[in-house]
């Protein structure tokens, strides 16, 4: 099939490209004539939500994006943060939600491939990956199929590419039944003086196409990602790309060699909207025009039209501006790796984006209006309606031991071993903490003591109940997870997954969540340096839970002092740093309320940002002083779950001595924020006294709540549970679920 360039432009055709009538009018005003079919495709690719951020830009601008260590904030392929000694960490998180629902293996695989490319396009060698996955209810007939496909897709690509997957999230909720979330994170390390950007420089210089050949796969993918789903979604399958991790691995090695050769002026990967988006971004950022000759583009299918070539989302491709005198050297590198290298155009000084195909000019558009001057909306929004808090007397009861076992053996808190054992978690030989702890930790190659910690977090049920507090909590929990290893949180990337922004209540969720994220990032000194927005996550008019995933990176000076979650030895004192009176109080929106009593009411726990910072800094200083034997933050499921996780990680039990006059339910299952469990040598009385006193001087409490030892978890007043019984409950759910039991 060949698509001609002289297709008549009808209102229906415009609408099918996702362009609204006012946007089409804007196109007519800009170019003073009817666009050609290829031009319409180019506008559609550049102005869709996915590429233009037209609904979100106004709010994204409110986020803090700079800091003393930030080298590159949002706007490039990934953010860059200084880690000292001439090294920097390059990272980003990005969604591949819609493709993964339509074709889970390839959707997830190409999501991983895309984010890895974003990182190595900037000159960094990828050293760690994570993925945050949200699926529908375990009872939904498609869920198992989607879990199986997405997990093997993530593994299939990342394992073959050769990056360790060191962390992530897997959650289930019926609100993702028709719209799962696949958020892929990648980080790499580069030299601070070896960062490559996408801004083209210099007129008349060659624009070079690198990597795999162009096919018809993914044509219109970015436009698809910017539409709501309905029951005809199966028809969209051809818009999902197919991944080739082998080519990506070769492309990585070739690009790093190419960059070392000094041949690269600017480079941009071809992601969403492929050749169109990469060429326009490079030109627009450099205030240059771009002239492309599609006859030079390496293709793997015959008779591809200009429209198809411009919108193809074939994977594993790059575009760069080349230093002309290096052409032969650059081409030799790509030939060695068996990849395509073709000069497909040049930079110009006319600020036009011109595309030639078979002697005909098929597009001639103003490049700035396609790129950095694309439309922007201030969409109407309404304040989210907040739920009523639980009444003080409303404390639903349960047997503590039974409730704990049920929660640990449930969909959200059970072990993710079934998932992460399908990922290569130790390739590169630098993984110091693999999935299952608070954060993944990878040592920095070439440095004796330095390591980086990675965590991905959000609690969508909190965000649904109160988007502002939920946004704050996502940032705080990520910061806390990094801190719990002893890392200094450096910066974060945000992957904002929401419903249809044209609905004011969804836009309200978005606006309030972003405001909460911004406030938390400012208070914690944790800037957002990259990110991605995924809107229109709806099926048949029903939106997902608002899910602003935060991926954070922290720096550990000396990994020999790093903390892990497992109880390290018998007889250590257990402290609850940041404890409220009564250790735990807040049951609203808790897992206990939801999983034991089927209730989803109440307000989510508040995050006191000032206290969060003081408590976290205190815990980190303890870890760095080398006195902490284990550390774990308290989050989903509350204190009982956190203690159980520490016991299961090492097999050592614990005995707790709670105050006798407190209701045990909020104490064990409340999800109060800003708490850490820390173990230290119980015989060091001076140390214990110093910790308790210093905490009080800083305005928070760090009571000794028990001690480690034995092979049981003894929550006072509840039946003692053998650590083995906890483990059985914790490890059983996922494999049984996937076996269809």
């Amino acid at each position, binding site marked *: 099939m060949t698509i001609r360039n002289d297709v008549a432009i009808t209102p229906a055709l415009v609408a099918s490209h996702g362009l609204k009538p006012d946007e089409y009018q804007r196109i007519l005003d800009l170019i003073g004539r009817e666009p050609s079919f290829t031009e319409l495709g180019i506008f559609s690719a550049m102005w869709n939500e996915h590429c233009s951020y037209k609904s979100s830009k106004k709010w994204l601008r409110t986020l803090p994006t700079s800091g003393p260590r930030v080298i590159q904030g949002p706007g490039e392929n990934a953010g860059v943060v200084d880690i000292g000694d001439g090294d920097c960490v390059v990272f980003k998180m990005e969604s591949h939600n819609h493709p993964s629902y339509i074709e889970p293996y390839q959707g997830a695989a190409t999501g991983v491939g895309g984010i890895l490319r974003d990182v190595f396009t900037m000159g960094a060698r990828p050293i760690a990956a994570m993925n945050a996955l949200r699926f529908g209810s375990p009872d939904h007939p498609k869920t198992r199929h989607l879990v199986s496909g997405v997990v*093997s897709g993530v593994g299939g690509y990342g394992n073959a590419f050769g990056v360790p997957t060191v962390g992530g999230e897997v959650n289930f909720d019926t609100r993702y039944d028709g719209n799962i979330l696949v958020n892929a994170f990648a980080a790499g390390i580069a030299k601070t003086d070896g960062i490559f950007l996408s801004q083209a420089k210099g007129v008349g210089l060659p624009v070079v196409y690198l990597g795999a050949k162009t096919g018809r796969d993914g044509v219109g993918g970015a436009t698809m990602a910017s539409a709501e789903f309905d029951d005809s979604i199966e028809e969209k399958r051809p818009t999902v790309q197919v991944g080739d991790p*082998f080519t990506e691995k070769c492309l990585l090695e070739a690009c790093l060699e190419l960059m070392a050769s000094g041949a690269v002026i600017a480079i941009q990967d071809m992601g969403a909207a492929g050749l169109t988006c990469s060429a326009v971004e490079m030109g627009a950022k450099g205030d240059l025009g771009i002239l492309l000759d599609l006859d030079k583009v390496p293709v793997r299918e015959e008779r591809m039209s200009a429209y198809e070539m411009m919108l193809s989302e074939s994977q594993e491709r790059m575009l760069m501006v080349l230093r002309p005198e290096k052409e032969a050297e650059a081409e030799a590198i790509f030939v060695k790796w*068996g990849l395509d290298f073709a000069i497909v155009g040049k930079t110009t000084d006319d600020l036009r984006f011109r595309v030639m195909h078979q002697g005909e000019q098929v597009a001639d558009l103003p490049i700035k209006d396609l790129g950095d001057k694309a439309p922007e909306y201030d969409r109407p929004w309404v304040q989210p309606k907040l739920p009523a808090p639980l009444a003080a007397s409303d404390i639903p009861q349960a047997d503590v031991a039974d409730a704990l076992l049920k929660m640990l053996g449930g969909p959200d808190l059970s072990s993710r071993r079934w998932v992460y054992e*399908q990922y290569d978690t*130790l*390739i*590169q*030989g630098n993984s110091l903490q693999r999935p299952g702890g608070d954060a993944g930790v990878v040592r920095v190659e070439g440095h004796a003591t330095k390591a980086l910690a990675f965590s991905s977090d959000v609690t969508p049920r909190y965000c649904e109940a109160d988007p502002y507090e939920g946004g704050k909590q996502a940032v705080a929990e990520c910061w806390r997870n990094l801190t719990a290893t002893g890392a200094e949180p450096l910066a974060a990337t945000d992957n904002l997954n929401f419903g249809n922004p044209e609905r004011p209540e969804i836009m309200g969720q978005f606006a309030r969540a972003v405001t909460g994220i911004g406030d938390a990032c400012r208070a914690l000194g944790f800037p957002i340096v990259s990110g991605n927005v995924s809107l229109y996550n709806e099926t048949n008019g029903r939106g997902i839970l608002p899910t602003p995933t935060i991926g954070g990176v922290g720096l550990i000076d000396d990994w020999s002092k790093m903390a892990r979650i497992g109880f390290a030895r018998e007889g250590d004192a257990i402290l609850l740093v940041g404890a409220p009176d009564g250790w735990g109080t807040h049951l609203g929106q808790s897992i206990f309320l939801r999983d034991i009593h089927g209730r989803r009411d109440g307000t989510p726990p508040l995050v006191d940002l000032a206290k969060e910072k003081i408590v976290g800094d205190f815990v980190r200083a303890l870890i760095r002083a080398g006195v902490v034997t284990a550390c774990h933050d308290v989050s989903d499921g509350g204190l009982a779950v956190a203690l159980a996780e520490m016991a299961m990680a090492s097999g050592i039990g614990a005995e707790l001595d709670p105050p006798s006059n407190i209701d045990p339910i909020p104490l064990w299952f409340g999800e109060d924020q800003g708490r850490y469990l820390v173990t230290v040598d119980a015989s060091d009385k001076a140390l214990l006294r110093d910790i308790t006193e210093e905490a009080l001087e800083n305005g928070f409490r760090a009571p000794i709540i028990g001690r480690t030892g034995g092979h049981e978890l003894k929550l006072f007043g509840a039946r003692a549970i053998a650590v083995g019984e906890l483990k059985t409950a914790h490890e059983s759910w996922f494999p049984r679920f996937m076996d269809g039991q």
Partner: protein
Amino acid sequence: MKSAVVLLPGLNRDRDMIAALTKISGQAPDTVWQTDTEIPDVDLIVVPGGFSYGDYLRCGAIAARMPVMRAVAEKAQKGVMVIGVCNGFQILLEAGLLPGALMRNASLKFVCREVRLQVANANTAFTRRYQPGQVIRCPVAHHDGNYFADADTLKRIEDGGQVVFRYAEGTNPNGSVNDIAGIMNARGNVLGLMPHPEDLIEDAHGGADGRPLFESVLGIAA
């Protein structure tokens, strides 16, 4: 002792292997590329893990037919020590340097976890620094590690002491026949194994149970 690491497009544990050999022997190994027809004068050649040529054909099948593998075979014939790990093991099988085949894991899934390995034969150039029957920790990370050989071959390698490592304590992660994790040729100079000893050689790895294998073959005192 000098060593060389074979580099092929798609291999991705080459850096792990180069780091391990460098740390243990004190000198960086030479590297040889897919199209090289000669291998420098070394005592040990390692084919590392990964997904050579994407493993888009049968694992290791394309790699086994590259020029560099002919050179490896010639060296093996002259008695040079050769180790293939993971994809490297698959490649050595496809190249005919070792007997048997590696099939898809019985679970049909990629598996990355720590297993236990029993040193089934400590009287080899690769294992002399282990105790006979010693059980060590070692990580695995593979999709196609399910070792199989026909009954005659199996009898021959079992009787000949060619089974070097077995999965121990019920940790067989892939369904391999007789829990076989690693085998050598009859002459005893070519070893193939699925687990990754190169990823367990120092404190940062949480242990060093993989180290004696390299110390054995490189003739380095522990």
